[in-house]
């Protein structure tokens, strides 16, 4: 009961989001064609795994007061290199996959190195690597080379089902659980939060600020590589444009999930709800007869509205209270 106000606010935000999600399910369940079928639910999961994975690892980075614009490009670079290793390097796909995870970790490591040792702002660094990684993917393939005809055992990862559930969903759930534990049950999460609130204060408290930030970025790179693998397996093709724009989708899910872009505040379950709310919205709109021909535009548009509403949900009542108690005179220039 004696919750600190920030936590209470957060709880409220996640509750709002959960309510939105339930409302979406109810609405589309009624108005949407074949929305609630197991096949469609599997589709929703399948289609949100990559962005979901990126959002899960974007979240700690943002929690620690940073941002990673390069995850989508890392995905692209890893997809291409995975294809290269498998097709031109002659590796087994399993081996290539493990190597790809290493490549992703290295990409994250480059961000980490620049951010922690040179103390450059994460926005600039990852803006640079956003271009750099995508550019390397294009340079390696000249933009045109595509890797296809992967073995069925590999494609199973992206298209098959295990126990009736899409194969990649198992990967996603494992990562989600691991991230939840990491953020909410270990000192890693605690340190990220502290760094997000006050990086100097965290350093004075003896926390290994650089290492924690580096870990978040390496984690982001590694999981982006994992997402590259599920993406390639689902799609059957690896090309330099894989994952274009996914960083923005991931950030959208993270902030919709209630993580503060200034760091310190946020939760993994909120992020998951954010991912789900966006995915269900997009899928549902393509099933309602009135909107199915404009689902692409409308889901973008409504995501925007949802973003504002979910955050304003708490802000509007507060504004009225403030208004009444503060009795500010009408605004004039200072």
């Amino acid at each position, binding site marked *: 009961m004696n919750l600190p106000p920030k936590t209470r606010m957060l709880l409220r935000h996640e509750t709002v989001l959960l309510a939105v999600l339930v409302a979406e399910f109810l609405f589309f369940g009624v108005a949407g064609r074949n929305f609630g079928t197991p096949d469609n639910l599997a589709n929703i999961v399948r289609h949100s795994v990559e962005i979901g994975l990126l959002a899960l690892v974007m979240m700690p980075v943002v929690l620690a007061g940073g941002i990673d614009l390069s995850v989508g490009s890392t995905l692209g670079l890893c997809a291409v290199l995975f294809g290269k290793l498998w097709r031109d390097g002659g590796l087994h796909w399993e081996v290539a996959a493990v190597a790809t995870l290493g490549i992703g970790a290295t990409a994250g490591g480059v961000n980490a190195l*620049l951010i922690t*040792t*040179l*103390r*450059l*702002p994460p*926005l*600039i*660094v990852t*803006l*640079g*690597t*956003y*271009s*750099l*990684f*995508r*550019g*390397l993917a*294009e*340079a390696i*393939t*000249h*933009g045109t080379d595509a890797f296809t005809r992967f073995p069925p055992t590999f494609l199973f990862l992206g298209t098959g089902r295990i126990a009736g559930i899409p194969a990649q969903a198992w990967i996603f759930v494992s990562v989600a659980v691991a991230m939840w534990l990491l953020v909410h049950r270990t000192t890693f999460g605690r340190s990220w939060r502290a760094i997000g609130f006050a990086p100097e204060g965290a350093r004075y408290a003896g926390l290994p600020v650089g290492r924690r930030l580096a870990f978040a970025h390496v984690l982001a790179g590694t999981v982006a590589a994992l997402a590259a693998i599920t993406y390639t397996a689902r799609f059957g093709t690896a090309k330099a444009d894989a994952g274009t724009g996914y960083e*923005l989708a991931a*950030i*959208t899910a993270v*902030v*919709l999930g209630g993580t*503060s*872009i*200034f760091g310190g505040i946020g939760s993994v379950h909120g992020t998951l709800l954010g991912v789900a709310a966006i995915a269900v919205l997009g899928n549902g709109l393509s099933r309602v007869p009135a909107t199915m021909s*404009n689902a*692409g*535009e*409308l889901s*973008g*548009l409504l*995501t*925007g*509205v949802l*973003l*504002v509403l979910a*955050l*304003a949900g708490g*802000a*509007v009542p507060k*504004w009225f209270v403030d208004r009444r108690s503060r009795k500010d005179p009408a*605004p004039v*220039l*200072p």
Partner: protein
Amino acid sequence: MLKRHFREFSVLGVLLSVLALLGVFAPDFFAPQPLLSRLTAAAPKLVVACGIAMVMISRQIDISVGSLFAVCSVVCGLLAAAKMPVPLAIASAIAAGAIGGALNGVLVAGLRLPSIVVTLATMVTLREGLRLARQGVFIDLPDGLQWIGLPMIGGQYLVCGIALTVLAAMAAVMRHLAIGRAVYAVGSDAEAARLAGIRPRLITFVVFVLMGALTGLAAVMNVVQSPQVDPNTGRMLELEAIAAAVVGGVAVSGGRGNLGGVLVGFLLLACITPALTYIGVKPYWDKAIQGAVILLAVVADGLRNRKNGR
């Protein structure tokens, strides 16, 4: 001076080296007329970058500028195509920008929502709304609008002149007027600003409105360069503007940066892609080199950070 503006000078150093290299390997790069044309084409981006710099100095961000840019372009185009007098169409486009900015401003300053969320929302909403409304169909413009009826060279000088005027005016306001310093104060510490008698929320609102109006102006500067409006225009504009600002030394955490740096950052980023064409580098190296240059431009600053143990 050098100490306080180390970033700006180090980026300037990189820019000058790039230009020197070009002078040696591709002197054609500096041929006056193509150079003027390229600068004219890039001028609207400079105006947006100036606005973004101001927004970032106030410790906010606006990623909806690309979408707003498209909306303003379409507004200007549609009104002009509907035979509205040119000055009125232009004024309407700028007003549309200001209104869009005011919407962001109300949500950020009024409801105290984080600007990244608000402008992310307006970014997708405006873009998708525009797509729904226009379906990507080009708008044909009447004759008087291109170069505002001037001969082309005149128009080019006008567009570049407007961009430089905006830059100079913004630089002067941000440096020498109380309201500009208030923006720095709010970005540095909003609570301290409040205690000093500044109204941070009002300043934030004004900043967003101004950002919107500048976006509208930039849209007009772009529209007048061709006889058609492409409603998909402005995609990724926000990223280019933010990149110019941050490379030029504007701090994401607010309160720091100046417009001279923005100009340097803008020029550096704006000259890379054409430079590659001039040197004849294959296009699939574009993005990698662009990224590398961004990182390179700030590395000197980073090494200095490291040395100072900050």
